[in-house]
């Protein structure tokens, strides 16, 4: 767990955690070693006519992320993330900050499967 991605519409740790993965506005990437954050826009995923989850998963994987924290993850996105070795954590926390604390405190368990149908 070195590079963690959170789904959010905002830009910083205090921003709300977006329950959607494929159509989330941004991914906030947290580097646990440096304790630094950066933002990757989910431009392609949001504007995809179809396969938004797959596109978003590609963006995550290419950014070198090994852990994803989001509200829900559909089957296609999960398949891509799983194949690329990205661990997915479903979380109901209100903000990215809270989600990060829950994750680091070990209160979240890695998903073994997608938790929603496609297009939920």
């Amino acid at each position, binding site marked *: 767990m070195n590079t963690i991605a959170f789904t959010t519409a905002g830009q910083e740790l205090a921003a709300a955690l977006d329950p959607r993965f494929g159509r989330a506005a941004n991914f906030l990437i947290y580097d646990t070693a440096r304790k630094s954050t950066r933002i990757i826009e989910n431009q392609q995923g949001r504007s*995809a006519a*179809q*396969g938004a989850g*797959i*596109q978003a*998963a*590609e963006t995550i*994987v*290419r950014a070198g992320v090994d852990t994803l924290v989001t509200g829900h993850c559909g089957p*296609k996105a999960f*398949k*891509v993330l799983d*194949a*690329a*070795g990205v661990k997915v954590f479903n979380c109901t926390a209100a903000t990215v900050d809270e989600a990060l604390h829950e994750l680091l405190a070990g209160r979240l368990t890695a998903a073994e499967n997608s938790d929603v149908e496609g297009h939920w």
Partner: protein
Amino acid sequence: MAAVSQNRSYRIAVASGKGGTGKTTVALNLAAMFGEPVQLADCDVEEPNDNLFLRCEQLTPHEVTMLVPEVDPQRCTGCGACGELCQFRGIVSLGSRALVFPELCHGCGGCALVCPTGAITERPHRIGIISTGQSGSIKLIEGRLEVGVSLVPPVIRGVRDQLQDELPAILDAPPGTSCPVVATLRECDYLLLVTDPTPFGLHDLKLAVALAKELGLPCGVVVNRAGEDLVGLHSYCQAENLPILLSLPDDRQIAEITSRGDLIAHALPEYGLMFAELAEKLKQELGAAGGRP
């Protein structure tokens, strides 16, 4: 265009632009009163309903398939070439074995061509079912899209492939003016546009007429639920040189009979006569190739 091909009988498409104008009602009743054996192609493959009215005793199914990639995990090196090529995320490869998403694949076969190790072979994937049956003088050809599939035009082409050249055909088109409708209108000789005298009906009729012009198809109009023309439908048709071949009144009996799954042409003789006349007019139009907008 009309009666063009020497060795093929004519094909009449029933379309509308706007949904719910009565395409299926017109297509079915026209087929029932055609005066000769006719094929009825239900091209509204996302929700085919012609057979609710025809109730063919036996339907013979034919599969429509599309080739989708299959990856041999032994030969795939995860180079990513396939995923880079695919614009639809039908195949994704991110440093691991390529993953296939058949429901997103458009069947182009490009991934198999660019794969440097020959790890991809193409296998047929079912995207729909074409059912054929007979009801009186009507030969039904119904397309039905597989649940979860979004590729409509290949299934409509599958319907068209089942059409016999020697019999005339009526094609019941899906609503709208996009790809599924274009797929239905290909190789048709005449377009019957069903509309209603509402602002939406007229607006979408104009879109459908623009499409007909683009495809070089002659067309005529059926006005359904005809009443007072508050939107200038008649003057539009006149200006566009579109003949109004039939006006169906806003009659409660039509709704009642249709909701029972019966045909108004059979249940009410005056409507039977109107559709028989429509069939005659269409045959004349096809002979004269008039009404081209």
